[in-house]
């Protein structure tokens, strides 16, 4: 009897943790791509190791990307990106912490594509900006969730200075594409 009560107490104590765990979705291999296009040069970089957690019941969403994990076609571009612009030794990660806002009455766990907006704080180069961007979350019949989001980022908004010598090669506003496939944690 005593051991039964003990088991019940333990189960009740653990229940919120279990519920919280059931509701969490995550990815360690999300992809963030950015494009800079100018008449002088087109630059693309991909980070295929973005970590993200999404909680559908509350809409809470977080991303974390290692700046050094952005892969460029040319070694020299990668070096300049890390050393001169992003200063990745000092600011090793770019992060986002915010909320997915579904349209009124929309249930994100229902299979299909859902147009949502994502609102929160984007921190890059140690500077945080509050952003609101449109995104699409597609829920598969087996429950997997794919999130896709395109938006623009201005390096200047995050205190990133581009020397005048290369200003014509780097766009004032970069196109950013986020693609994450979530699985249940």
């Amino acid at each position, binding site marked *: 009897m005593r051991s039964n009560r003990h088991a019940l107490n333990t189960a009740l104590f653990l229940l919120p943790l279990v519920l919280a765990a059931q509701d969490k979705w995550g990815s*360690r291999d999300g992809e963030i791509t950015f494009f800079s296009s100018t008449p002088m040069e087109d630059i693309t970089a991909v980070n295929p*190791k973005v970590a993200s957690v999404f909680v559908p019941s509350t809409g809470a969403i977080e991303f974390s990307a290692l700046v*050094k*994990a952005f892969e460029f076609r*040319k070694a*020299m571009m990668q070096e300049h990106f890390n050393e001169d612009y992003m200063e990745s030794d000092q600011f*090793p*990660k770019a992060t986002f912490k915010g909320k997915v806002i579904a349209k009124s009455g929309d249930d994100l766990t229902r299979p299909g594509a859902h147009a949502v907006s994502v609102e929160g704080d984007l921190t890059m180069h140690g500077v945080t900006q509050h952003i609101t961007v449109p995104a699409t979350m597609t829920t598969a019949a087996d429950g997997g969730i794919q999130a896709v989001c395109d938006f623009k980022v201005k390096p200047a908004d995050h205190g990133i200075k581009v020397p005048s010598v290369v200003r014509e090669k780097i766009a004032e506003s970069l196109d950013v594409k986020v693609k994450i496939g979530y699985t249940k944690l």
Partner: protein
Amino acid sequence: MRKRTILLILLLLAVVVGGLIYRSSQAPPASAAGRTADLSVAATDLFAEFRKDEMEAGKRYNDKLVEVSGIVRSVSTGRNGKEVLLETGDPMGAVVCDFAVNEKPGLSAGDAASIQGYCAGYNMDVLLQRCSIAH
């Protein structure tokens, strides 16, 4: 005549140097293959150092060619090529070795391995890029 020869040599030199500089500016990021590692460490220790103090471990390992030894947790195919995860003693984190294109690790889960790659830091896992098998 002599002046013209000197000018011609200088011009030729400028073309060669310019060509070399242009070529190096177009080169892709280097793979770890055929290089000598800057540092050697066990996968469990590398992960523990980053978990303890990310900034401090970053100063020691980031951008360095690191040789990591450990037991293979899994092998999969990533965006660039093969991706080998090494055990860290923590089920929530691994040392992720992203192999360079065309590099074939020839490893399976449970194997003991020594892999070298460029350390990019810690983001739930420790990430090594452009890896090759260490010899």
